[in-house]
């Protein structure tokens, strides 16, 4: 089989990329999804709050996904989808990319294409992240697994629950398990702040009087076959448990919500350069990775907390991939400007830009390293500060962005570096 663009992953990122690529004129687009339905992780996120930016209304996850699935259905003249098919390898040799797939019906087969969009999403940090030696009784789940069990299969994994990690999925599951009749004893967070959205802390914990204990972790769990208790302890500045603060909580279920990791095994195997800060590919202004014609967007690029931004980013990647296959974009010159995270900034997307490939506006997304009150977000062109923007508060849990104009970047003769920094 040959195609113009193969998109790996049929979640919101893959779907938005497909629609945008089609609208930009690409004709032979194939979306490959390992699940039996399109929509990705949104299918299990049945709570509402999606789409405020994109559709100006509050949708649930499946409703948000269905909007994009519909857009794909309306473009069947150019977009094909393969379900229950997993991509196991991608090779790039010159202009041709070879995607190796596997499905029950067709066995192993390959698709050749000009461009690949990586949209595989992320998965949860494995439970190894929980550094507890010894027993592994039943009743310990990742929060996302529990979400699938409750929301898709309609079963309740347990009745007495402790949640470790206050990321959004953990918070959402605290409410969900409570509404299904379970008792959630506490949500524990190792850090002195929660990584979750304020709205979720208020509506998922405070509404149900579920305590959030910051700077607290689980140091031991017990139970023979099924979990019977966890032992918690407060931690000091260096995240080490403080002796004497131990507390035993009886419970049959421990949910781990310890963060998400981009799913980049395929990306690494094909030799794409990975940004160690995000765990995702390094991309330029076109969401193009270090291999020409290979693009990346959505959670596989960097972990998002709002699906609206995923869709926005994926749309751009789809458009750029279409331009690549239609040959309407200048090839990458060596004249790149690097984007550098300065003080207080953990990473930026993109990591490099080329003036001749910029659109009118360039959106730079980034995350900060810590909670800062009243910071100024500063943009430097080499050593010159060209913008200061006051903010009331920034936090690692909320993605930030600055938007620059092409004309401002192009007005400068020889910039080598654009730095984003907090002051």
């Amino acid at each position, binding site marked *: 089989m040959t195609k113009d663009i193969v998109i790996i992953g049929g979640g919101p990122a893959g779907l938005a990329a497909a629609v945008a690529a089609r609208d930009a004129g690409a004709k032979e687009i194939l979306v490959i999804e390992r699940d039996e339905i399109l929509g990705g992780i949104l*299918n299990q996120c*049945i*709570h*509402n709050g999606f789409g405020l930016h994109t559709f100006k209304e*509050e949708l*649930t996850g*499946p*409703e948000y996904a*269905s909007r994009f699935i519909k857009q794909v259905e309306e473009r069947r003249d150019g977009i094909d989808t393969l379900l229950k098919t997993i991509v196991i390898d991608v090779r790039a040799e010159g202009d041709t990319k070879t995607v190796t797939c596997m499905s029950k019906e067709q066995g192993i087969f390959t698709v050749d294409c000009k461009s690949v969009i990586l949209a595989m999403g992320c998965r949860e940090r494995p439970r190894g992240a929980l550094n507890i030696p010894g027993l592994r009784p039943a009743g310990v789940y990742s929060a996302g697994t529990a979400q699938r069990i*409750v*929301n*898709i*299969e*309609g079963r309740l994994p347990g009745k007495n629950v402790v949640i470790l990690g206050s990321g959004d999925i953990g918070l959402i599951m605290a409410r969900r398990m409570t*509404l*299904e*009749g379970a008792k959630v004893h506490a949500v524990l967070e190792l850090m002195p702040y929660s990584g979750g959205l*304020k*709205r979720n*802390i*208020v*509506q998922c914990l*405070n*509404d149900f009087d579920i305590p959030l204990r910051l700077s607290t972790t689980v140091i031991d769990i017990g139970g023979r076959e099924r979990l019977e208790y966890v032992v918690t302890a407060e931690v000091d500045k260096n995240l080490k448990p403080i002796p004497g603060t131990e507390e035993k909580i009886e419970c049959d279920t421990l949910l781990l919500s310890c963060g998400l990791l981009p799913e980049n095994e395929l990306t690494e195997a094909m030799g794409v350069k990975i940004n160690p800060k995000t765990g995702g590919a390094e991309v330029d202004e076109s969401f193009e990775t270090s291999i020409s014609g290979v693009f990346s967007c959505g959670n596989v690029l960097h972990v998002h907390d709002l699906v609206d931004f995923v869709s926005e980013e994926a749309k751009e990647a789809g458009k750029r991939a279409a331009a690549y296959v239609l040959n309407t974009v200048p090839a990458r010159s060596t004249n790149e400007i690097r984007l550098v995270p300065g003080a207080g900034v953990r990473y930026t997307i993109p990591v490099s830009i080329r003036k001749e490939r910029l659109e009118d506006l360039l959106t730079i997304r980034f995350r900060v390293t810590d909670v800062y009150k009243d910071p100024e977000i500063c943009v430097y062109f080499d050593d010159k500060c060209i913008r200061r923007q006051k903010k*009331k*508060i*920034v*936090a690692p849990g*909320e993605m930030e962005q600055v938007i620059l104009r092409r004309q401002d970047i192009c007005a400068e003769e020889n910039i080598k570096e654009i730095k984003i920094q907090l002051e």
Partner: protein
Amino acid sequence: MAEKILTCIGCPMGCELTVNYTEGDADSVVVTGNTCEKGRIYGTNEVISPKRTVTGTVNVVNREGTVVSVKTVPEIPKDMVIPVSEELNNLYVEAPTHIGDVVVRDILGTGSDLLITKNII
């Protein structure tokens, strides 16, 4: 007079609001601790008539081991969240389901409808 401490969810600032009020009397509400008008409106609504959307699942009778997701439209009073969630256990639908299908009208007298949020073929 009653007093309530709330966290405003209007923006990431998360201002801590102190709301003084007489039960059920919107004119009596005094919000302090807010940085902007949004916080005052949020604080007032939260003590006078807090509302929430309930999302959950109901059984699909003709698909074993499958549930379908639902939500209340419009939002229901906050104190009805638990009763409505419990009521979901007594309900069921048949596949195929379509987004927007009504499962129950005026669920538990809240004036809100329970709608399907997922297509199951």
